[in-house]
């Protein structure tokens, strides 16, 4: 039990996908114009991540090593399709405002990265908790970014008016540059916090394999 809890915390804070491993950044800025969108995207990614990790982990001993990448891709794509269709059917407004970013979950480095690095080697229960931790770790950062952007750019939170009526909404924060700025500042804050907290220990930033060039130039076949 304690181990599962630590796996969860690992995804939430220690190895937070957005701030520490720094993967899956695209959607983190694109959909965070409102908190509702942030929550929607977080739920979508968590679902795809947990289900893919569950399935891959179940079949981890049956999947031949040489063709594992295509198999992972197909499993992830299947769950993304399910998610996409569910969203379209039950939350059409939300689905429309997130647009292409729902189907893009399929190439979200978080999913591919965790499946490859974790659930293809770990037992089922650990994988599910890893998926939950990573998914929630992603979601809460999304909500944090969205809260700042919605509050400053629109004066509301989850659609409710928060700022006094004399407050002039700063449209800048809803626009793309505002997304980059808020993300940069949150990340700077988190880096500083980590530096203070981990003053003694040296954190080992893991680089993600799908987006950086391999050292020897012999990149992995996908």
């Amino acid at each position, binding site marked *: 039990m304690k181990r599962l809890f630590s796996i969860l915390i690992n995804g939430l804070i220690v190895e937070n996908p957005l701030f520490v491993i720094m993967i899956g950044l695209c959607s983190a800025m694109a959909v965070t114009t409102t908190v509702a969108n942030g929550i929607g995207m977080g739920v979508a990614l968590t679902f795809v991540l947990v289900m893919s990790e569950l399935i891959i982990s179940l079949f981890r001993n049956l999947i031949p090593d040489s063709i594992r990448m295509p198999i992972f891709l197909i499993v992830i794509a299947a769950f993304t399709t399910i998610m996409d269709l569910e969203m379209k059917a039950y939350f059409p407004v939300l689905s429309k405002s997130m647009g292409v970013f729902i189907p893009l979950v399929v190439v979200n480095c978080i999913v591919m990265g965790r499946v490859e690095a974790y659930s293809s080697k770990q037992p089922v229960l650990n994988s599910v908790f890893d998926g939950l931790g990573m998914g929630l770790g992603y979601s809460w950062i999304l909500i944090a970014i969205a809260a700042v952007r919605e509050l400053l750019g629109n004066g509301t939170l989850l659609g409710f008016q928060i700022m006094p009526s004399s407050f002039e909404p700063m449209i800048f924060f809803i626009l793309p540059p505002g997304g980059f700025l808020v993300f*940069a500042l949150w990340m700077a804050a988190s*880096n500083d916090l980590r530096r203070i907290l981990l003053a003694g220990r040296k954190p080992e930033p893991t680089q993600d394999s799908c987006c*950086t060039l391999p050292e020897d130039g012999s*990149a992995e*076949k996908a």
Partner: protein
Amino acid sequence: MSDLVKIFVAAFLINNIILMRFIALCSYIGMTSDVGQSVGMGLAVTFVTVMASAVTWPIYHWILKPNGLEFLEILVFIVVIAALVQLVEFYLKKSVPSLYHAMGIYLPLITTNCAILAVTFDQITSNYTFVQSIVFAVAVSLGYLLAMLLLAGVRQRLKNSAIPAFMMETPILYLTTSIIAVAFMGFAGLIK
């Protein structure tokens, strides 16, 4: 003709895929530490995006749509793109070794590059014709190349600048991107 120009300008500058739409940020941050590398990646993406569009458009409009299989688009497109990248890699390695050495190492990374998948989905949702799709693909990937080049240039200068400790590495890159994006907002009125 004029609608093609409109599509081109809109996709290249106004809705720049990285700066305005936040797509393909991983490679944007990961591959711009060096100007040459960013150009190589940009050209490889351009090449594959155009190829992928030329393949996915007929698949969607001639195979998936007539058979009512539109819901399979995510699955089919990702597999087709992965296979295509692999084929292109084999072909270049055997037939055009010089080109392979110039951009071959970037090819496997491209399979998981969201830009290509996003372009193919956009072409479907915008209901583009085949020619429009190709123009759109070229414009988007040139926009990608431009954004990569801009950041790579700035990063050369950042190496020799005094940056506050808490802004080191990634935060300063996003701050820079934010300012570049503000400049790109200026293109918004270019097309009525």
